[in-house]
């Protein structure tokens, strides 16, 4: 329960959402060709490697972005607090605190990406004769994420869902055309 509260905390929404969306989209880009029947059918090893790739890229990219943002926040605070020495706050507990926060959120983003990448991959693994099933379910999952996000930010759930589905469709087309794995 404690971990669930940590994961769903408002401050970590960006990490969670980025990971979930990134996992599906990157998988579409990398593996849409194979999922849709170009080349060899999907197998467990490829599925795991693609998901691991999603974990690594999502986690690392998020870490760099988040750590940069948090360090910049410390620099801004130094200016607001009129601290003479540059980088002073980074040497306090705050420096360690932002580092650990960035690592924890990057791990969350990576794991979310890994899990969401497994959705299209496992469907393609278990239903190799119905390739479109995996794609359609993944696009629906993106649509559901869009509805949840739209509601969370008090935007239009329909527009959010459409945007994510369009993004997913474009990634699928690009992945089919590129046929990367």
């Amino acid at each position, binding site marked *: 329960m404690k971990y669930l509260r940590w994961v769903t905390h408002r401050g970590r929404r960006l990490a969670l959402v980025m990971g979930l969306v990134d996992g599906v989209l990157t998988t579409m880009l990398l593996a849409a060709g194979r999922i849709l029947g170009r080349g060899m059918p999907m197998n467990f090893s490829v599925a795991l490697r693609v998901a691991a790739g999603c974990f690594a890229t999502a986690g690392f990219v998020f870490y760099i972005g988040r750590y940069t943002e948090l360090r910049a*926040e*410390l620099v*801004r*605070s130094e200016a*607001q*607090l*009129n*601290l003479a020495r540059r980088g002073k*706050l980074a040497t*306090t*507990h*705050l420096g360690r*605190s*932002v580092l650990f926060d960035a690592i924890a959120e990057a791990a969350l983003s990576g794991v979310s990406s890994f899990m969401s990448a497994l959705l299209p991959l496992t469907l393609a693994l278990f239903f190799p004769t119905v390739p479109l099933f995996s794609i359609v379910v993944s696009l629906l999952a993106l649509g559901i994420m869009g509805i949840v996000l739209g509601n969370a930010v008090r935007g239009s759930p329909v527009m959010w869902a459409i945007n994510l589905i369009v993004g997913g469709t474009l990634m699928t087309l690009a992945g089919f055309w590129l046929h990367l794995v």
Partner: protein
Amino acid sequence: MNIRRLLLDVDKASARPSLVELAAAIDGVDGVEAVNITVTEIDIETVDMDITIEGNNLDYDKIIEAIESAGAVVHSLDEIIVGSKILERAESQR
């Protein structure tokens, strides 16, 4: 010299550290018996606070170090009470 009470004017960034983290950092210094943190002003990016610390044989340098290492900034020492008992400020008769 037995420092019994300190009143400090302290600033911190709005986001970090939290008041709880700051209080915990001060409470961790030897001799501290009670801490009061009162927010006196909130700006867009900074929070101004009065911190009152009471105890026995308070170590001023260690308290400042604890506050700064938590990520806040001490602006000034506004009150200090030293001795075997706490002597409140006497109002001037003038």
